[in-house]
C-alpha cells in the first residue's frame, strides 16, 4: 500500500482538496484532543460544586457561567467531550463491526443466508431506530456502558443494510470468481477482496453513524434513559438545566452548541469522504 497511487492515498488527495471537509477533520481532531486532555485543561473539575457561585452568567472566571450547583459549565462541557466522544466512537464501533459482518455475510453468501439475516433485520428496521435505542436503554437501565450498547445495537440494521448493498455489487465481479478459482477461502475472499473494495459506502456510513450516535446518546440522556448526572454528558446537562431556562439560559445553551459542533464536524467529514470516494460525483 506504500505506492503513490494506492486507493487510500488517492482518496486522501481528493479529500485534502475539500476545504470544508478539512475544516471538519480539524474540528474532529480538536474535539478528540479536548476529550483526551479534559482533566488537565479544564479550569475546574466536572463536579466541583460551589453554592456561593450558583447561576453566574458567563464571565472571565467562568466562560460559560455556572449552573444550579455552582459548577463551572465550561469545565463540564470539556469533560463532556470525553463522555460524548467515547459513547459516539464505541457505539459506532459496535454497530459497524456487527453490522458489517452481518451485511457482508448476507451479501456474499446470498440465497438462504441473505434471506435469514435480512428478514431478521427487517423486524429491527420496522421500528424507528431511536425507538429501538430507547427500548433497549429502558431494558438495560441507565448508565454509560448501557447507553453505548443501546445506541450501538440500534445502529446495526442500517449499517448491515449499507454493507450488504455494497458487498452485493462486488460479489459478482470477475476478480471474486478468480479468487474462488484459486481456492481462496470464503473468509479470505470477504476480508481481503470483497470488503476492501466495498469499503467506500461503509466508511461514509460510519462517519455519519458517528454523528447520529452522538445525537442519539444525548437524546437518551436528555429523556433520562442514558447517562445520569453528575456525569457531564451534554444531553444530561441539558436535561438538568431545563428547569432554569427562563432565567439562566446559558446552562442549556453551551452543551447544545457542543453537541452541534461535534455532529457538524462528523457530517462535513462524511460529506467530504463521500465526494472523495465517489469520483462520479465530482464535476
Amino acid at each position, binding site marked *: 500500500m506504500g505506492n503513490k497511487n494506492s486507493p487510500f492515498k488517492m482518496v486522501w488527495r481528493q479529500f485534502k482538496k475539500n476545504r470544508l471537509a478539512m475544516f471538519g477533520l480539524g474540528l474532529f481532531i480538536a474535539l478528540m484532543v479536548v476529550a483526551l486532555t479534559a482533566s488537565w485543561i479544564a479550569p475546574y473539575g466536572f463536579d466541583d460544586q460551589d453554592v456561593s457561585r450558583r447561576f453566574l452568567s458567563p464571565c472571565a472566571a467562568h466562560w460559560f457561567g455556572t449552573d444550579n450547583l455552582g459548577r463551572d459549565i465550561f469545565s463540564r462541557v470539556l469533560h463532556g467531550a470525553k463522555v460524548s466522544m467515547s459513547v459516539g466512537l464505541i457505539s459506532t464501533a459496535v454497530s459497524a463491526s456487527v453490522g458489517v459482518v452481518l451485511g457482508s455475510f448476507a451479501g456474499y453468501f446470498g440465497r438462504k443466508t441473505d434471506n435469514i439475516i435480512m*428478514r*431478521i433485520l*427487517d*423486524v*429491527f428496521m*420496522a*421500528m*424507528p*431506530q*431511536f*425507538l429501538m435505542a*430507547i*427500548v*433497549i436503554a*429502558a*431494558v*438495560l*437501565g441507565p448508565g454509560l456502558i448501557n447507553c453505548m450498547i443501546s445506541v450501538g445495537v440500534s445502529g446495526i440494521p442500517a449499517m448491515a443494510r449499507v454493507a450488504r448493498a455494497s458487498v452485493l455489487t462486488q460479489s459478482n465481479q470477475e476478480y471474486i470468481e478468480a479468487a474462488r478459482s484459486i481456492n481462496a477461502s470464503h473468509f479470505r475472499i470477504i476480508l481481503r477482496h470483497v470488503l476492501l473494495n466495498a469499503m467506500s459506502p461503509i466508511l461514509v456510513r460510519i462517519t455519519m453513524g458517528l*454523528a447520529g450516535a452522538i*445525537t442519539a446518546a*444525548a*437524546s437518551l440522556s*436528555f*429523556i*433520562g*434513559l442514558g447517562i445520569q448526572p453528575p456525569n457531564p454528558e451534554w*444531553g444530561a446537562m*441539558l436535561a438538568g438545566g*431545563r428547569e432554569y*431556562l*427562563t432565567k439562566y*439560559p446559558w446552562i*442549556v*445553551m453551551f*452543551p*447544545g452548541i457542543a*453537541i*452541534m*459542533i461535534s*455532529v*457538524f464536524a462528523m*457530517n*462535513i467529514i462524511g460529506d467530504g469522504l463521500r465526494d472523495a470516494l465517489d469520483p462520479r*460525483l465530482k464535476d
Partner: protein
Amino acid sequence: MLQYVLKRIIMSIFVLIGVSMLIFFLLELAPGDPALAVLGENASPEAVAEFHKIHGLDDPALVRYARYLWNVLHGDLGTSYSNGKAVAGEILTRFPTTVLLAFLATVATVIIGVPLGILTAIKRGKWVDTLLSATAMIGVSMPGFWLGLMLIYAFSLKIGWLPASGFYGPVYWILPTVTMAAASAAAVMRTMHSSMLEVVRQDYIRTARAKGVVESRIIFHHMLRNSLIPVITVIGLQISLLFGGTMVIETVFSIPGLGKFLVTALKARDYPICQGGVLLVSCSYSIVSLGCDLLYAFLDPRIRASYQGKKKSDRKAVEKNGK
C-alpha cells in the same frame, strides 16, 4: 401492481409479528420484577402475588407470549400495569396527537426542503446557494431537543408570542413543528439539491434544451420529476426519524402524545403499554414505507413496469437494468 401491494401487506404482517416478539422478549430480559416497579419496592409479597395473578405473570414466557399474540390478533392489547385500563384505549387516545405532530412536521419538511433544494440547485454557486447550504448543514447537525429549548426561550419566555408547552390548538403546534421539521427539511433540501444536479447532466435535459423547451418547463417537468425518487426515499426515512423524534420533542414541549406516554411507560416498566405503543408505531411506519414504495411506482414508469411484468424472471431483469 395489486399483487405487489398484497404481497407487501402480508410481509408487513409477518414483520409486525416479529416486532411483537422482539419487544416482548426484550422486555422479558429486563432484570427485576415489574410488579415491584409498579407497586413500589416495599410491596408486600401478597400484593406482588396478586399482581402476578391478575396479569398472568406466573406462566412461562413462551406461554405468555402466545397468549399475548393471540389476544393482539383479536384486537386486545392487554391492560396497563399501572392503572388497569385497556392498553388499546390508552394509546389510541394519545396517538392522534402524535400523528398530527408527525404529519405537520412532514408537511413542513416537504414545503421547506423541496423548494429550497431546487432553488439552491438552480442558483448553484451563487450566494443564495452558499448561504442556504451552510444553514442546512447546521440544521442537520442541531439536536432537535436543544433547538426546541432555544425556541421556547426565544419565542415563549422572552418575546412571549407562542406558548411553551401543551398542544391545544394551532398556536401550540408552531414551535414543536418547526423544531421537528428543521433537521428533516435540511436533509431533504440537501438530497433534493444533489439529486437535481445529478439530473442536470442527463442527456434528456440536453435534448430538451436543444429543442428549445422553456427553462421553467425543463426545471419543473423534466428535472423535478426525475429527481424526486431519491428525495422520496429521504422523506420516508425522515418520517421514521420524526416518529422516533416525537418521544423527545413531546417531552420537551410537554405534549400529551404517544411518544411522551411511551417514555413514561418504559421508565415505569408498564410493559403492556410499551408493547402496544411500539407495535402501533411500527405499524404506522410500515404503512408509510409502503406508501413511499407506491409513490416510486407512481412517479417512475420504469419501476411501475417492473411490477407489471408477469414472469418473475422478467421482473428481475428489469430491476437489474433499473439499477
